[in-house]
């Protein structure tokens, strides 16, 4: 039988607003109380802006999502399970830096002027 994963699952959400056709850079940190980041996925407040949007992500100074990766590949829509969508990573949390560069490409799709992007970091805390 598979060993049961006893670590506590946590979530960290990074939210930012992206303007049509613009690039947004987010710099922040993971939470000190989280031990590691196990996965990452996104949700857009306006899924029409998905086409052509790309992103690049660093966690703990490691580039985990390379430049020009389409957001659509990490986007969670209602018909998918989070486990499927979450991009698997294994990086240290504990206040490590998070850097996200999000490039919108939706000006041709005439979506509203701006929309919100939420980046979800699936974190784990070791059971003491």
């Amino acid at each position, binding site marked *: 039988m598979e060993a049961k994963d006893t670590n506590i699952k946590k979530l960290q959400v990074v939210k930012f607003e992206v303007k049509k056709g613009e690039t947004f850079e987010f710099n922040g940190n993971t939470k000190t109380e989280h031990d590691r980041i196990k996965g990452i996925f996104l949700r857009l407040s306006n899924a029409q802006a998905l086409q052509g949007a790309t992103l690049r992500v660093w966690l703990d100074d490691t580039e985990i999502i390379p430049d020009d990766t389409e957001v659509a*590949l990490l986007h969670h829509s209602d018909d*998918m399970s989070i486990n499927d969508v979450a991009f698997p990573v294994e990086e240290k949390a504990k206040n490590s830096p998070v850097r996200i560069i999000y490039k919108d490409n939706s000006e041709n799709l005439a979506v509203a002027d701006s929309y919100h992007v939420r980046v979800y970091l699936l974190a784990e805390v070791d059971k003491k």
Partner: protein
Amino acid sequence: MKRHFVITHQSKDNGHLNVQDLLPASCKLITGIAVNATVKQDAEMEDVLESLSFPQTLITGLMQDEQIASLFYSYLRTRSDAAESRAFFESDILPEIVSVLSNNIVFSCLNSEQQQELSENIINLFNNQFTNYIYNEAGLFNNGQGMNDLDFTDFIAQQTLMFTYKHTDEIFKHTIQTYKQPEPYECGNISLLVNGNSFLLRDYMLTANRKVRYMSKEIIPFHEPLDVNSNIHTVFKSNKNSNDNILTIRIYIEYEHE
């Protein structure tokens, strides 16, 4: 740990591609590949009919209001004769129902014009069809013979609700404008070769603007050990369907990273 590497190429004016890219030095084993193509196109606006939620509790609440209940005693006097009962219903009860519904069913998502239209639809529908419905189908005259005031308001409320629900599609809808998303189409064939001889993909049909699923579903699994400084050769044959649009092809290479 798996890592990814993205190669992006653009094809302009339906051009073919024949390009070579160096893979990262740490890429010694390719474990999967995903390919996607997108085209930047201007989206057009289109009108879409969207349903509004059916305000069941609101209608029930409104119908049990004082205004309707107080009409019962006047109705009592008329219930011996079918024609008189119907005339009273049309002259007194129906206008009350119509005004209660049209003034109180308000959707915050509608602008004033749309709200006006909704109210008018309610008024027209009830004025034209409700009396026939409640007398012919629901049988108010026969059923109303032994009713007290509570039964009466309850009956009116139930029948109003049923009648409105039957006509949900006619009333509770509004038009919204959305942007038409670009249509998917087959844009060409792609072949990927490692070091100029080993095919990863061969004449793989590329569909532009298709709906992309999540990464693990998109990846086609491979097991391709590599030498240091390997390169990947991309050959794209356009099938000339892209018109003047620029086609962006992205190749995602998943590899084992020590």
